[in-house]
Protein backbone atom coordinates (compact mmCIF):
# COMPACT_ATOMS: atom_id res chain seq x y z
CA UNK A 1 0.00 0.00 0.00
CA UNK A 2 1.63 3.23 -1.05
CA UNK A 3 0.70 6.59 0.20
CA UNK A 4 1.02 9.63 -1.93
CA UNK A 5 3.38 12.10 -0.36
CA UNK A 6 3.08 15.75 -1.06
CA UNK A 7 6.20 16.70 0.83
CA UNK A 8 9.42 15.10 1.97
CA UNK A 9 9.38 13.52 5.39
CA UNK A 10 10.53 15.77 8.17
CA UNK A 11 13.42 14.82 10.44
CA UNK A 12 10.98 13.77 13.13
CA UNK A 13 9.13 11.54 10.74
CA UNK A 14 12.33 9.95 9.49
CA UNK A 15 13.32 9.23 13.06
CA UNK A 16 9.97 7.64 13.74
CA UNK A 17 10.34 5.51 10.67
CA UNK A 18 13.76 4.30 11.79
CA UNK A 19 12.38 3.44 15.22
CA UNK A 20 9.53 1.63 13.51
CA UNK A 21 11.93 -0.53 11.50
CA UNK A 22 14.06 -1.17 14.56
CA UNK A 23 11.11 -2.26 16.66
CA UNK A 24 10.02 -4.68 13.97
CA UNK A 25 13.53 -6.08 13.73
CA UNK A 26 13.69 -6.58 17.47
CA UNK A 27 10.28 -8.24 17.34
CA UNK A 28 11.37 -10.62 14.60
CA UNK A 29 14.52 -11.47 16.52
CA UNK A 30 12.46 -12.12 19.64
CA UNK A 31 10.25 -14.50 17.69
CA UNK A 32 13.21 -16.43 16.36
CA UNK A 33 15.34 -16.45 19.50
CA UNK A 34 13.68 -19.39 21.31
CA UNK A 35 13.97 -21.54 18.21
CA UNK A 36 17.59 -20.62 17.78
CA UNK A 37 18.25 -21.46 21.40
CA UNK A 38 16.75 -24.92 21.00
CA UNK A 39 18.80 -25.43 17.86
CA UNK A 40 21.93 -24.57 19.78
CA UNK A 41 21.06 -27.00 22.55
CA UNK A 42 20.35 -29.75 20.06
CA UNK A 43 23.73 -29.32 18.42
CA UNK A 44 25.61 -29.28 21.69
CA UNK A 45 26.76 -32.19 23.78
CA UNK A 46 24.16 -32.83 26.44
CA UNK A 47 26.68 -33.41 29.17
CA UNK A 48 28.41 -30.18 28.34
CA UNK A 49 25.11 -28.33 28.26
CA UNK A 50 24.28 -29.48 31.77
CA UNK A 51 27.26 -27.52 33.05
CA UNK A 52 25.51 -24.34 32.02
CA UNK A 53 26.69 -21.42 30.01
CA UNK A 54 25.65 -22.60 26.56
CA UNK A 55 23.39 -19.95 25.14
CA UNK A 56 23.76 -18.55 21.66
CA UNK A 57 26.32 -20.81 20.08
CA UNK A 58 27.18 -24.47 20.58
CA UNK A 59 30.19 -24.90 22.78
CA UNK A 60 30.76 -28.59 22.18
CA UNK A 61 29.33 -29.24 18.76
CA UNK A 62 27.97 -32.68 18.00
CA UNK A 63 25.48 -34.45 15.79
CA UNK A 64 25.00 -37.12 18.45
CA UNK A 65 21.63 -35.87 19.59
CA UNK A 66 20.20 -36.18 16.11
CA UNK A 67 21.81 -39.57 15.67
CA UNK A 68 20.10 -40.60 18.88
CA UNK A 69 16.74 -39.34 17.69
CA UNK A 70 16.91 -41.29 14.46
CA UNK A 71 18.30 -44.44 15.93
CA UNK A 72 15.90 -44.65 18.83
CA UNK A 73 13.12 -46.85 17.58
CA UNK A 74 10.55 -45.72 20.10
CA UNK A 75 10.75 -42.11 18.94
CA UNK A 76 10.53 -43.20 15.33
CA UNK A 77 7.46 -45.16 16.29
CA UNK A 78 5.81 -42.02 17.61
CA UNK A 79 6.64 -40.22 14.39
CA UNK A 80 5.09 -43.06 12.48
CA UNK A 81 1.91 -42.82 14.51
CA UNK A 82 1.70 -39.09 13.96
CA UNK A 83 2.19 -39.48 10.22
CA UNK A 84 -0.35 -42.27 10.02
CA UNK A 85 -2.86 -40.18 11.87
CA UNK A 86 -2.24 -37.22 9.59
CA UNK A 87 -2.54 -39.25 6.40
CA UNK A 88 -5.76 -40.86 7.57
CA UNK A 89 -7.46 -37.96 9.29
CA UNK A 90 -6.88 -34.92 7.11
CA UNK A 91 -8.06 -36.29 3.74
CA UNK A 92 -11.09 -37.99 5.30
CA UNK A 93 -11.87 -34.91 7.34
CA UNK A 94 -11.78 -32.75 4.25
CA UNK A 95 -13.97 -35.18 2.37
CA UNK A 96 -16.63 -35.43 5.06
CA UNK A 97 -16.73 -31.73 5.86
CA UNK A 98 -16.66 -30.34 2.33
CA UNK A 99 -19.15 -32.89 1.00
CA UNK A 100 -21.55 -31.92 3.75
CA UNK A 101 -20.81 -28.26 3.08
CA UNK A 102 -21.65 -28.61 -0.57
CA UNK A 103 -24.85 -30.52 0.16
CA UNK A 104 -25.99 -27.91 2.68
CA UNK A 105 -25.37 -25.15 0.18
CA UNK A 106 -27.93 -26.59 -2.23
CA UNK A 107 -31.05 -24.59 -1.49
CA UNK A 108 -33.55 -27.07 -2.87
CA UNK A 109 -32.60 -29.80 -0.47
CA UNK A 110 -35.54 -30.76 1.76
CA UNK A 111 -34.76 -30.60 5.45
CA UNK A 112 -31.72 -28.48 4.78
CA UNK A 113 -32.50 -25.92 7.47
CA UNK A 114 -33.06 -28.64 10.03
CA UNK A 115 -29.75 -30.36 9.32
CA UNK A 116 -27.90 -27.06 9.25
CA UNK A 117 -29.50 -26.18 12.58
CA UNK A 118 -28.34 -29.50 13.95
CA UNK A 119 -24.76 -28.65 13.02
CA UNK A 120 -24.89 -25.15 14.46
CA UNK A 121 -26.42 -26.22 17.76
CA UNK A 122 -23.72 -28.86 18.20
CA UNK A 123 -21.15 -26.13 17.75
CA UNK A 124 -22.38 -24.21 20.76
CA UNK A 125 -23.84 -26.77 23.10
CA UNK A 126 -20.97 -28.83 24.32
CA UNK A 127 -21.87 -31.85 26.40
CA UNK A 128 -18.59 -31.61 28.24
CA UNK A 129 -15.46 -33.66 28.55
CA UNK A 130 -16.75 -36.42 30.80
CA UNK A 131 -19.80 -37.28 28.71
CA UNK A 132 -17.58 -37.32 25.64
CA UNK A 133 -15.12 -39.63 27.35
CA UNK A 134 -17.91 -41.95 28.49
CA UNK A 135 -19.25 -42.05 24.94
CA UNK A 136 -15.81 -43.12 23.73
CA UNK A 137 -15.74 -45.81 26.36
CA UNK A 138 -19.11 -47.10 25.24
CA UNK A 139 -18.03 -47.11 21.61
CA UNK A 140 -14.99 -49.10 22.63
CA UNK A 141 -12.74 -46.51 21.09
CA UNK A 142 -10.49 -46.02 24.09
CA UNK A 143 -6.97 -47.22 23.34
CA UNK A 144 -7.77 -47.91 19.70
CA UNK A 145 -6.01 -46.05 16.92
CA UNK A 146 -9.41 -45.09 15.52
CA UNK A 147 -9.86 -42.66 18.39
CA UNK A 148 -7.26 -40.50 16.68
CA UNK A 149 -9.43 -40.26 13.61
CA UNK A 150 -13.14 -40.94 14.07
CA UNK A 151 -14.28 -38.24 16.49
CA UNK A 152 -12.43 -35.56 14.53
CA UNK A 153 -13.74 -36.20 11.05
CA UNK A 154 -16.21 -33.34 11.04
CA UNK A 155 -15.96 -29.70 11.97
CA UNK A 156 -18.98 -27.42 11.88
CA UNK A 157 -16.89 -24.27 11.82
CA UNK A 158 -15.00 -25.46 8.76
CA UNK A 159 -18.29 -26.36 7.15
CA UNK A 160 -19.39 -22.77 7.49
CA UNK A 161 -16.14 -21.51 6.01
CA UNK A 162 -16.54 -23.92 3.11
CA UNK A 163 -20.12 -22.76 2.59
CA UNK A 164 -18.82 -19.37 1.57
CA UNK A 165 -16.65 -20.95 -1.07
CA UNK A 166 -19.37 -23.34 -2.22
CA UNK A 167 -21.85 -20.53 -2.70
CA UNK A 168 -19.44 -18.71 -4.98
CA UNK A 169 -19.90 -21.31 -7.69
CA UNK A 170 -22.36 -20.01 -10.26
CA UNK A 171 -25.66 -21.83 -10.41
CA UNK A 172 -25.60 -21.85 -14.19
CA UNK A 173 -22.55 -24.08 -14.14
CA UNK A 174 -24.35 -26.61 -11.97
CA UNK A 175 -27.46 -26.40 -14.08
CA UNK A 176 -25.58 -27.22 -17.24
CA UNK A 177 -23.98 -30.12 -15.47
CA UNK A 178 -27.41 -31.47 -14.58
CA UNK A 179 -28.44 -31.02 -18.19
CA UNK A 180 -25.47 -33.10 -19.22
CA UNK A 181 -26.81 -35.86 -17.02
CA UNK A 182 -24.43 -35.63 -14.10
CA UNK A 183 -25.59 -36.53 -10.60
CA UNK A 184 -24.69 -34.55 -7.47
CA UNK A 185 -21.80 -36.78 -6.52
CA UNK A 186 -20.18 -36.43 -9.91
CA UNK A 187 -20.71 -32.71 -9.85
CA UNK A 188 -19.03 -32.51 -6.50
CA UNK A 189 -15.91 -34.37 -7.53
CA UNK A 190 -15.56 -33.05 -11.05
CA UNK A 191 -16.65 -29.43 -10.67
CA UNK A 192 -16.95 -28.26 -7.09
CA UNK A 193 -13.72 -29.65 -5.72
CA UNK A 194 -11.47 -28.22 -8.44
CA UNK A 195 -13.16 -24.84 -8.17
CA UNK A 196 -12.91 -24.62 -4.38
CA UNK A 197 -9.45 -26.16 -4.22
CA UNK A 198 -7.92 -23.12 -2.53
CA UNK A 199 -10.37 -23.20 0.35
CA UNK A 200 -10.01 -26.95 0.68
CA UNK A 201 -6.23 -26.58 0.82
CA UNK A 202 -6.55 -23.97 3.54
CA UNK A 203 -8.87 -26.11 5.62
CA UNK A 204 -6.57 -29.06 5.10
CA UNK A 205 -3.59 -27.05 6.29
CA UNK A 206 -5.30 -26.01 9.51
CA UNK A 207 -6.51 -29.53 10.14
CA UNK A 208 -3.07 -30.99 9.52
CA UNK A 209 -1.42 -28.54 11.87
CA UNK A 210 -3.97 -29.38 14.54
CA UNK A 211 -3.69 -33.14 14.05
CA UNK A 212 0.11 -33.06 14.26
CA UNK A 213 0.08 -31.06 17.47
CA UNK A 214 -2.84 -32.73 19.25
CA UNK A 215 -1.45 -34.37 22.37
CA UNK A 216 -4.69 -34.52 24.33
CA UNK A 217 -6.21 -37.47 22.49
CA UNK A 218 -3.14 -39.61 23.01
CA UNK A 219 -2.72 -38.64 26.62
CA UNK A 220 -6.25 -39.26 27.83
CA UNK A 221 -7.87 -41.64 25.37
CA UNK A 222 -4.96 -43.98 24.73
CA UNK A 223 -3.36 -46.32 27.26
CA UNK A 224 -0.57 -48.15 25.46
CA UNK A 225 2.64 -46.24 24.94
CA UNK A 226 3.26 -47.70 21.51
CA UNK A 227 0.21 -45.89 20.19
CA UNK A 228 1.37 -42.45 21.28
CA UNK A 229 1.80 -39.73 18.74
CA UNK A 230 4.85 -37.53 18.82
CA UNK A 231 2.78 -34.77 20.41
CA UNK A 232 1.73 -36.99 23.29
CA UNK A 233 5.30 -38.19 23.71
CA UNK A 234 6.56 -34.61 23.97
CA UNK A 235 3.85 -33.81 26.49
CA UNK A 236 4.76 -36.83 28.60
CA UNK A 237 8.40 -35.84 28.47
CA UNK A 238 7.52 -32.34 29.54
CA UNK A 239 5.39 -33.49 32.45
CA UNK A 240 7.35 -36.47 33.64
CA UNK A 241 10.82 -36.04 32.17
CA UNK A 242 10.90 -39.40 30.41
CA UNK A 243 14.47 -40.36 31.05
CA UNK A 244 14.00 -43.91 29.93
CA UNK A 245 14.17 -42.60 26.41
CA UNK A 246 17.63 -41.28 26.96
CA UNK A 247 18.73 -44.71 28.02
CA UNK A 248 17.15 -46.41 25.05
CA UNK A 249 18.62 -43.84 22.71
CA UNK A 250 22.03 -44.26 24.27
CA UNK A 251 21.78 -48.01 23.97
CA UNK A 252 20.79 -47.75 20.34
CA UNK A 253 23.79 -45.59 19.61
CA UNK A 254 26.16 -47.83 21.49
CA UNK A 255 24.86 -50.78 19.56
CA UNK A 256 25.72 -48.98 16.36
CA UNK A 257 29.17 -47.89 17.36
CA UNK A 258 30.82 -49.37 20.43
CA UNK A 259 33.63 -46.87 20.65
CA UNK A 260 31.50 -43.75 21.07
CA UNK A 261 31.26 -42.13 24.44
CA UNK A 262 27.78 -41.10 25.41
CA UNK A 263 27.31 -37.37 25.30
CA UNK A 264 23.53 -37.09 25.14
CA UNK A 265 21.34 -36.30 28.06
CA UNK A 266 17.64 -35.69 28.46
CA UNK A 267 17.83 -31.98 27.63
CA UNK A 268 19.80 -32.27 24.42
CA UNK A 269 17.85 -35.29 23.24
CA UNK A 270 14.63 -33.46 23.85
CA UNK A 271 15.90 -30.41 21.98
CA UNK A 272 16.81 -32.51 18.97
CA UNK A 273 13.42 -34.24 19.06
CA UNK A 274 11.69 -30.87 19.20
CA UNK A 275 13.56 -29.58 16.21
CA UNK A 276 12.92 -32.65 14.14
CA UNK A 277 9.23 -32.34 14.98
CA UNK A 278 8.90 -28.73 13.90
CA UNK A 279 11.22 -28.84 10.93
CA UNK A 280 8.61 -30.02 8.39
CA UNK A 281 6.07 -27.32 9.17
CA UNK A 282 8.76 -24.65 9.43
CA UNK A 283 10.00 -25.41 5.95
CA UNK A 284 6.54 -25.63 4.43
CA UNK A 285 4.50 -22.81 5.88
CA UNK A 286 6.22 -19.86 4.12
CA UNK A 287 5.08 -21.30 0.83
CA UNK A 288 1.52 -21.70 2.02
CA UNK A 289 1.04 -18.11 3.14
CA UNK A 290 -1.34 -17.45 0.31
CA UNK A 291 -3.65 -20.15 1.64
CA UNK A 292 -3.88 -19.35 5.28
CA UNK A 293 -4.17 -15.64 4.67
CA UNK A 294 -7.04 -16.45 2.35
CA UNK A 295 -8.49 -18.67 5.06
CA UNK A 296 -8.31 -15.94 7.68
CA UNK A 297 -10.08 -13.54 5.37
CA UNK A 298 -12.88 -15.96 4.55
CA UNK A 299 -13.25 -16.98 8.15
CA UNK A 300 -13.52 -13.46 9.44
CA UNK A 301 -15.69 -12.02 6.70
CA UNK A 302 -18.33 -14.76 7.11
CA UNK A 303 -21.43 -13.92 5.17
Amino acid sequence: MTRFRFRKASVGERLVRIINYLMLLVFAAAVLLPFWYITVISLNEGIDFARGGVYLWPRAFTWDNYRAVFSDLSILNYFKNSMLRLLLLTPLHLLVTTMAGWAISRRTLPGRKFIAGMFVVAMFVNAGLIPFYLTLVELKLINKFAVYVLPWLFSCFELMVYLVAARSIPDSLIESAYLDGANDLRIYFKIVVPLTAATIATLGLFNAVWAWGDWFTGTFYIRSHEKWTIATYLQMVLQRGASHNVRSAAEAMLAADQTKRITINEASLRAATLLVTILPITLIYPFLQKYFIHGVMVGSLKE
Partner: protein
Amino acid sequence: METAVSYGKLLQPKSKLKFWAKLKDHRWLYLMLAPAVLLQVVFAYLPMSKMLIAFRNVDEFHLPYGTEWVGFQNFNFLSDPYFWETLRNTVVIAGLKLLICFPAPILLALLLNEVRHQRFKKAIQTISYLPHFISWVIIANIIDRLLNTNVGLANGIITALGGKAIHFTGSTKWFLPIVVISNLWKEVGFSSIVYLAAMTQISPELYEAAEVDGAGRFAQLKHVTLPGIYPIISMMLVLSIPSLINAGFVQIYLLHNPLNQPVSEILDIYILKTGLSYGDFAKAAAMGICNSIVSLILIIIANKGSAKLGGSTIW
Protein backbone atom coordinates in the same frame (compact mmCIF):
# COMPACT_ATOMS: atom_id res chain seq x y z
CA MET B 1 -41.85 -21.62 -0.12
CA GLU B 2 -38.64 -21.76 -2.08
CA THR B 3 -38.34 -18.29 -3.50
CA ALA B 4 -34.68 -18.50 -4.36
CA VAL B 5 -33.77 -19.66 -7.79
CA SER B 6 -34.36 -23.37 -7.78
CA TYR B 7 -32.06 -24.47 -10.49
CA GLY B 8 -33.43 -27.94 -10.40
CA LYS B 9 -37.03 -26.90 -11.03
CA LEU B 10 -36.72 -27.18 -14.78
CA LEU B 11 -35.13 -30.55 -14.54
CA GLN B 12 -37.23 -32.33 -11.96
CA PRO B 13 -39.16 -35.32 -13.19
CA LYS B 14 -42.95 -35.28 -13.25
CA SER B 15 -43.07 -36.92 -9.84
CA LYS B 16 -41.94 -33.69 -8.21
CA LEU B 17 -45.21 -33.40 -6.36
CA LYS B 18 -44.47 -36.50 -4.37
CA PHE B 19 -42.43 -36.00 -1.23
CA TRP B 20 -40.51 -39.26 -1.47
CA ALA B 21 -39.66 -38.67 -5.06
CA LYS B 22 -38.22 -35.35 -4.06
CA LEU B 23 -36.04 -37.08 -1.54
CA LYS B 24 -35.00 -39.56 -4.17
CA ASP B 25 -33.95 -36.74 -6.46
CA HIS B 26 -31.54 -35.50 -3.89
CA ARG B 27 -30.32 -38.93 -2.81
CA TRP B 28 -26.71 -38.16 -3.59
CA LEU B 29 -26.79 -35.01 -1.52
CA TYR B 30 -28.20 -36.95 1.41
CA LEU B 31 -25.47 -39.50 0.95
CA MET B 32 -22.93 -36.73 1.06
CA LEU B 33 -24.46 -35.40 4.24
CA ALA B 34 -24.75 -38.79 5.89
CA PRO B 35 -21.23 -39.15 7.33
CA ALA B 36 -21.29 -35.67 8.84
CA VAL B 37 -24.74 -36.15 10.34
CA LEU B 38 -23.82 -39.55 11.73
CA LEU B 39 -20.65 -38.17 13.28
CA GLN B 40 -22.52 -35.30 14.88
CA VAL B 41 -25.14 -37.61 16.33
CA VAL B 42 -22.57 -40.00 17.72
CA PHE B 43 -19.96 -37.60 19.02
CA ALA B 44 -21.92 -34.45 19.79
CA TYR B 45 -25.49 -35.44 20.59
CA LEU B 46 -25.00 -38.87 22.13
CA PRO B 47 -22.72 -37.47 24.84
CA MET B 48 -25.50 -35.09 25.80
CA SER B 49 -27.48 -38.00 27.14
CA LYS B 50 -24.54 -38.77 29.37
CA MET B 51 -24.71 -35.38 31.00
CA LEU B 52 -27.44 -36.88 33.13
CA ILE B 53 -24.90 -38.72 35.26
CA ALA B 54 -24.38 -35.40 36.98
CA PHE B 55 -27.68 -36.12 38.67
CA ARG B 56 -26.88 -39.63 39.68
CA ASN B 57 -24.91 -41.29 42.41
CA VAL B 58 -21.77 -42.61 40.75
CA ASP B 59 -19.03 -44.47 42.57
CA GLU B 60 -16.23 -46.69 41.37
CA PHE B 61 -18.25 -49.88 41.60
CA HIS B 62 -21.11 -48.62 39.52
CA LEU B 63 -19.44 -46.93 36.60
CA PRO B 64 -20.48 -45.17 34.65
CA TYR B 65 -24.12 -44.66 35.35
CA GLY B 66 -24.31 -44.99 39.06
CA THR B 67 -27.07 -46.47 41.13
CA GLU B 68 -29.78 -43.89 41.64
CA TRP B 69 -30.94 -40.37 41.00
CA VAL B 70 -29.67 -37.91 43.56
CA GLY B 71 -30.84 -34.64 42.18
CA PHE B 72 -28.50 -31.75 42.67
CA GLN B 73 -26.31 -33.45 45.23
CA ASN B 74 -23.32 -33.48 42.92
CA PHE B 75 -23.65 -29.77 42.48
CA ASN B 76 -22.41 -29.09 45.99
CA PHE B 77 -19.10 -28.03 44.48
CA LEU B 78 -20.75 -24.62 44.25
CA SER B 79 -20.12 -24.14 47.94
CA ASP B 80 -16.57 -25.43 47.72
CA PRO B 81 -14.14 -22.49 47.89
CA TYR B 82 -11.59 -24.29 45.72
CA PHE B 83 -14.07 -24.32 42.85
CA TRP B 84 -14.38 -20.57 43.06
CA GLU B 85 -10.60 -20.27 43.17
CA THR B 86 -10.32 -22.12 39.90
CA LEU B 87 -13.03 -19.92 38.45
CA ARG B 88 -11.13 -16.85 39.62
CA ASN B 89 -7.96 -18.18 37.99
CA THR B 90 -9.86 -18.73 34.75
CA VAL B 91 -11.28 -15.23 34.72
CA VAL B 92 -7.97 -13.58 35.68
CA ILE B 93 -6.05 -15.35 32.95
CA ALA B 94 -8.73 -14.76 30.34
CA GLY B 95 -9.03 -11.11 31.35
CA LEU B 96 -5.28 -10.52 31.18
CA LYS B 97 -5.11 -12.15 27.80
CA LEU B 98 -7.91 -9.95 26.57
CA LEU B 99 -6.28 -6.84 27.95
CA ILE B 100 -2.83 -7.48 26.54
CA CYS B 101 -3.07 -10.02 23.75
CA PHE B 102 -6.03 -8.39 22.06
CA PRO B 103 -4.53 -4.96 21.31
CA ALA B 104 -1.06 -6.30 20.49
CA PRO B 105 -1.83 -7.61 16.99
CA ILE B 106 -3.44 -4.28 16.18
CA LEU B 107 -0.27 -2.50 17.25
CA LEU B 108 1.85 -4.85 15.19
CA ALA B 109 -0.40 -4.29 12.18
CA LEU B 110 -0.05 -0.53 12.64
CA LEU B 111 3.73 -0.82 12.73
CA LEU B 112 3.81 -3.07 9.70
CA ASN B 113 1.44 -0.83 7.83
CA GLU B 114 3.93 2.03 8.01
CA VAL B 115 6.66 0.05 6.33
CA ARG B 116 7.26 0.98 2.72
CA HIS B 117 9.87 -1.57 1.91
CA GLN B 118 7.78 -4.52 0.73
CA ARG B 119 10.46 -7.19 1.07
CA PHE B 120 11.20 -6.21 4.65
CA LYS B 121 7.52 -6.18 5.50
CA LYS B 122 6.98 -9.59 3.95
CA ALA B 123 9.99 -11.03 5.74
CA ILE B 124 8.92 -9.76 9.14
CA GLN B 125 5.41 -11.04 8.56
CA THR B 126 6.57 -14.49 7.51
CA ILE B 127 8.75 -14.78 10.58
CA SER B 128 5.94 -13.61 12.85
CA TYR B 129 3.61 -16.36 11.64
CA LEU B 130 5.95 -19.18 12.59
CA PRO B 131 4.99 -19.67 16.26
CA HIS B 132 1.33 -19.97 15.33
CA PHE B 133 2.04 -23.19 13.48
CA ILE B 134 4.07 -24.71 16.26
CA SER B 135 1.91 -26.58 18.72
CA TRP B 136 1.80 -25.65 22.39
CA VAL B 137 3.50 -28.88 23.33
CA ILE B 138 6.61 -27.76 21.52
CA ILE B 139 6.41 -24.23 22.86
CA ALA B 140 5.89 -25.43 26.41
CA ASN B 141 8.99 -27.57 26.07
CA ILE B 142 10.94 -24.62 24.70
CA ILE B 143 9.76 -22.41 27.54
CA ASP B 144 10.78 -25.10 29.98
CA ARG B 145 14.29 -24.99 28.51
CA LEU B 146 14.52 -21.21 28.29
CA LEU B 147 13.39 -20.62 31.83
CA ASN B 148 15.31 -23.44 33.40
CA THR B 149 16.68 -22.32 36.72
CA ASN B 150 20.23 -23.54 36.23
CA VAL B 151 21.07 -23.59 32.55
CA GLY B 152 18.30 -21.61 30.92
CA LEU B 153 18.95 -18.61 28.73
CA ALA B 154 16.73 -16.29 30.73
CA ASN B 155 18.56 -16.90 33.97
CA GLY B 156 21.84 -16.76 32.10
CA ILE B 157 21.07 -13.19 31.12
CA ILE B 158 19.85 -12.33 34.61
CA THR B 159 22.96 -13.67 36.32
CA ALA B 160 25.19 -12.03 33.74
CA LEU B 161 23.57 -8.74 34.65
CA GLY B 162 24.29 -9.44 38.28
CA GLY B 163 20.95 -10.74 39.48
CA LYS B 164 19.98 -13.94 41.21
CA ALA B 165 18.58 -16.85 39.22
CA ILE B 166 14.80 -16.94 39.29
CA HIS B 167 12.86 -20.16 39.57
CA PHE B 168 10.37 -19.27 36.86
CA THR B 169 8.49 -22.45 36.25
CA GLY B 170 7.67 -23.18 39.85
CA SER B 171 6.68 -19.74 40.96
CA THR B 172 3.15 -18.46 41.33
CA LYS B 173 4.32 -14.90 40.78
CA TRP B 174 5.74 -15.52 37.32
CA PHE B 175 3.02 -17.77 35.99
CA LEU B 176 0.78 -15.03 34.66
CA PRO B 177 3.55 -13.13 32.85
CA ILE B 178 4.77 -16.38 31.32
CA VAL B 179 1.29 -17.24 30.12
CA VAL B 180 0.62 -13.82 28.65
CA ILE B 181 4.02 -13.38 27.01
CA SER B 182 4.05 -16.85 25.51
CA ASN B 183 0.53 -16.37 24.18
CA LEU B 184 1.61 -13.05 22.73
CA TRP B 185 4.66 -14.60 21.13
CA LYS B 186 2.63 -17.36 19.59
CA GLU B 187 -0.37 -15.50 18.26
CA VAL B 188 0.45 -11.84 17.70
CA GLY B 189 1.84 -12.39 14.22
CA PHE B 190 -0.96 -14.53 12.88
CA SER B 191 -3.66 -12.41 14.52
CA SER B 192 -2.34 -9.30 12.86
CA ILE B 193 -3.23 -10.67 9.44
CA VAL B 194 -6.85 -9.68 9.82
CA TYR B 195 -6.03 -6.14 10.86
CA LEU B 196 -3.43 -5.63 8.15
CA ALA B 197 -5.89 -6.85 5.56
CA ALA B 198 -8.45 -4.40 6.88
CA MET B 199 -5.92 -1.59 6.69
CA THR B 200 -5.20 -2.29 3.06
CA GLN B 201 -8.89 -1.82 2.38
CA ILE B 202 -8.74 1.79 3.46
CA SER B 203 -8.85 4.02 0.43
CA PRO B 204 -5.60 5.92 -0.21
CA GLU B 205 -7.69 8.95 -1.05
CA LEU B 206 -8.56 9.29 2.60
CA TYR B 207 -4.90 9.50 3.45
CA GLU B 208 -4.31 12.01 0.70
CA ALA B 209 -7.15 14.14 1.95
CA ALA B 210 -5.70 13.99 5.44
CA GLU B 211 -2.28 15.04 4.14
CA VAL B 212 -3.78 17.96 2.34
CA ASP B 213 -5.44 18.98 5.57
CA GLY B 214 -2.02 18.99 7.15
CA ALA B 215 -2.14 15.74 9.08
CA GLY B 216 1.16 14.21 10.06
CA ARG B 217 1.65 10.48 10.49
CA PHE B 218 0.19 10.19 13.96
CA ALA B 219 -2.80 12.27 13.06
CA GLN B 220 -3.36 10.12 9.99
CA LEU B 221 -3.20 7.07 12.19
CA LYS B 222 -5.69 8.49 14.59
CA HIS B 223 -8.15 9.87 12.11
CA VAL B 224 -7.89 7.59 9.11
CA THR B 225 -6.39 4.21 9.98
CA LEU B 226 -8.02 3.49 13.30
CA PRO B 227 -11.53 4.54 12.32
CA GLY B 228 -11.05 2.54 9.13
CA ILE B 229 -10.45 -0.70 10.96
CA TYR B 230 -12.93 -0.04 13.76
CA PRO B 231 -15.52 -2.53 12.39
CA ILE B 232 -12.97 -5.32 12.29
CA ILE B 233 -11.75 -4.50 15.78
CA SER B 234 -15.22 -4.58 17.23
CA MET B 235 -16.01 -7.81 15.46
CA MET B 236 -12.84 -9.49 16.71
CA LEU B 237 -13.51 -8.19 20.20
CA VAL B 238 -16.96 -9.69 20.26
CA LEU B 239 -15.67 -12.96 18.85
CA SER B 240 -13.14 -13.23 21.64
CA ILE B 241 -15.71 -13.06 24.43
CA PRO B 242 -16.68 -16.74 24.27
CA SER B 243 -13.09 -17.68 24.96
CA LEU B 244 -13.29 -15.95 28.33
CA ILE B 245 -14.50 -19.11 29.98
CA ASN B 246 -11.85 -21.15 28.24
CA ALA B 247 -8.71 -19.12 28.96
CA GLY B 248 -6.70 -21.31 26.60
CA PHE B 249 -6.91 -24.75 28.15
CA VAL B 250 -4.14 -26.38 26.14
CA GLN B 251 -1.56 -23.76 26.97
CA ILE B 252 -2.44 -23.57 30.65
CA TYR B 253 -2.50 -27.32 31.10
CA LEU B 254 0.98 -27.65 29.65
CA LEU B 255 2.39 -24.84 31.73
CA HIS B 256 0.77 -25.74 35.00
CA ASN B 257 2.45 -27.92 37.61
CA PRO B 258 1.87 -28.63 41.30
CA LEU B 259 4.04 -25.67 42.26
CA ASN B 260 2.07 -22.98 40.48
CA GLN B 261 -1.26 -24.71 40.94
CA PRO B 262 -2.88 -21.99 43.10
CA VAL B 263 -2.83 -19.61 40.16
CA SER B 264 -2.69 -22.00 37.25
CA GLU B 265 -5.54 -24.37 37.92
CA ILE B 266 -8.32 -23.17 35.72
CA LEU B 267 -11.82 -24.61 35.66
CA ASP B 268 -11.24 -26.89 32.70
CA ILE B 269 -8.20 -28.42 34.34
CA TYR B 270 -10.10 -28.91 37.58
CA ILE B 271 -12.90 -30.67 35.70
CA LEU B 272 -10.38 -32.83 33.90
CA LYS B 273 -8.66 -33.83 37.12
CA THR B 274 -11.89 -34.47 38.96
CA GLY B 275 -13.18 -36.70 36.23
CA LEU B 276 -10.31 -38.51 34.61
CA SER B 277 -7.72 -38.47 37.36
CA TYR B 278 -9.77 -38.77 40.55
CA GLY B 279 -12.57 -40.65 38.87
CA ASP B 280 -15.40 -38.57 40.30
CA PHE B 281 -17.34 -38.63 37.07
CA ALA B 282 -20.61 -37.28 38.40
CA LYS B 283 -19.09 -34.20 39.96
CA ALA B 284 -17.01 -33.53 36.86
CA ALA B 285 -20.08 -33.89 34.68
CA ALA B 286 -21.95 -31.47 36.93
CA MET B 287 -19.16 -28.92 36.66
CA GLY B 288 -19.11 -29.48 32.93
CA ILE B 289 -22.80 -28.61 32.77
CA CYS B 290 -22.17 -25.35 34.62
CA ASN B 291 -19.31 -24.63 32.29
CA SER B 292 -21.40 -25.25 29.19
CA ILE B 293 -24.23 -23.07 30.46
CA VAL B 294 -21.91 -20.17 31.17
CA SER B 295 -20.18 -20.41 27.81
CA LEU B 296 -23.54 -20.60 26.04
CA ILE B 297 -24.60 -17.41 27.82
CA LEU B 298 -21.34 -15.74 26.82
CA ILE B 299 -21.83 -16.74 23.21
CA ILE B 300 -25.35 -15.35 23.18
CA ILE B 301 -24.10 -12.10 24.69
CA ALA B 302 -21.31 -11.98 22.13
CA ASN B 303 -23.72 -12.56 19.29
CA LYS B 304 -26.13 -9.87 20.48
CA GLY B 305 -23.20 -7.52 20.97
CA SER B 306 -21.94 -8.18 17.49
CA ALA B 307 -25.37 -7.52 16.02
CA LYS B 308 -25.62 -4.23 17.93
CA LEU B 309 -22.22 -3.10 16.65
CA GLY B 310 -23.21 -3.89 13.12
CA GLY B 311 -20.84 -6.75 12.76
CA SER B 312 -21.72 -10.13 11.40
CA THR B 313 -23.56 -12.60 13.55
CA ILE B 314 -23.30 -16.33 13.81
CA TRP B 315 -26.93 -16.94 13.05
